[in-house]
């Protein structure tokens, strides 16, 4: 009797039917705890800190594109107010200077963008301005690489990218914020 039952047991297989349940349980756990992280952002390289004030640069004022953002989030571009949706187009024109105007950059390599903001400027506006300026450069790079290689800038290899970015270098300098409109 006992012998027979042990033989029976040997023939039994482990029931794998509950495996699916266990896996589902784990699956649901991971589904709930997952946060598909939105780890994307505007990449910026800050200038390194130095305690001495930088030597005054001799810059031709025609090559500087100054963008001021005040504490009520208004833009002043080269002394003229400008809505933010025009910023990208105007920046592109300034850098490339297609009509060879006297008051715009001598060449893309000479062009310099300068941003200055108040302490009361909202972060949203600041990032938007930065984003527009970066977009202007990205579009110029795309156009240049289409012309030169017939490809988008993203699809170029490292060497080709360098050729493009050295012809149109991205120079955005940021001045210290002015203490105005500090948060209450």
């Amino acid at each position, binding site marked *: 009797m006992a012998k027979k039952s042990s033989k029976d047991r040997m023939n039994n297989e482990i029931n794998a039917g509950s495996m699916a349940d266990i896996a589902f349980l784990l699956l649901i756990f991971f589904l709930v705890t997952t946060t598909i992280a939105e780890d994307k952002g505007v990449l910026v390289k800050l200038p390194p800190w130095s305690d001495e004030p930088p030597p005054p640069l001799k810059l031709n004022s025609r090559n500087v594109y100054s963008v001021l953002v005040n504490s009520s989030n208004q833009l002043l571009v080269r002394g003229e107010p400008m809505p933010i949706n025009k910023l990208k187009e105007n920046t592109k024109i300034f850098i490339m200077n297609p009509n060879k105007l006297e008051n715009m950059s001598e060449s893309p390599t000479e062009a310099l963008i300068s941003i200055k903001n108040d302490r009361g400027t*909202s972060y949203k506006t600041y990032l938007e301005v930065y984003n527009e300026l970066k977009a202007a450069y990205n579009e110029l790079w795309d156009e240049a690489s289409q012309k030169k290689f017939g490809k988008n800038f993203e699809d170029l290899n490292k060497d080709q990218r360098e050729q493009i970015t050295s012809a149109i270098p991205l120079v955005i300098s940021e001045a210290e914020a002015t203490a105005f409109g*500090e948060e209450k």
Partner: protein
Amino acid sequence: MHKFNKKVGKSKPAISTASLPDIVFMLLFFFMVVTKMRDTELKVSINTPSASELTKLEKKTLVNFIYIGRPTKKYEKEFGTKPRIQLGDKFATTDDIPLFLEKHKVTVPEAQRPSIISSLKVDSDVTMGIVGDVKTALRKAGQVKVNYSAKKRERTK
């Protein structure tokens, strides 16, 4: 015609569920791989602005996160409603940033240290004052690669 008649009389076979665990495991592994456990509790409310020129943060181990925003309801009483900085899982000031960066730096192999990126997760309502202070602190600590976290949107025409 009688080709179709053949069906009649055949017993219905049960659908085999033997492969169900495999399918579920496949899904499970997918989620296990893409999951990033939320290791820090957010004590400030953050709603990042949107931007179009985004760069993806590739290596998670090379990134440290700095959060700036107003304290959430739970911490309002203790810390007020002014924008605050959160490093790791606690509130901090700009003076704590160098130590925070150093603590993260030692976990990274020496060869990769120059490519460490600081991800700034900043609420869109915050003003530049506090962000500027953090930027200055980062520059003083020699951390110049910064990523302003943002949501994706289309480029404006």
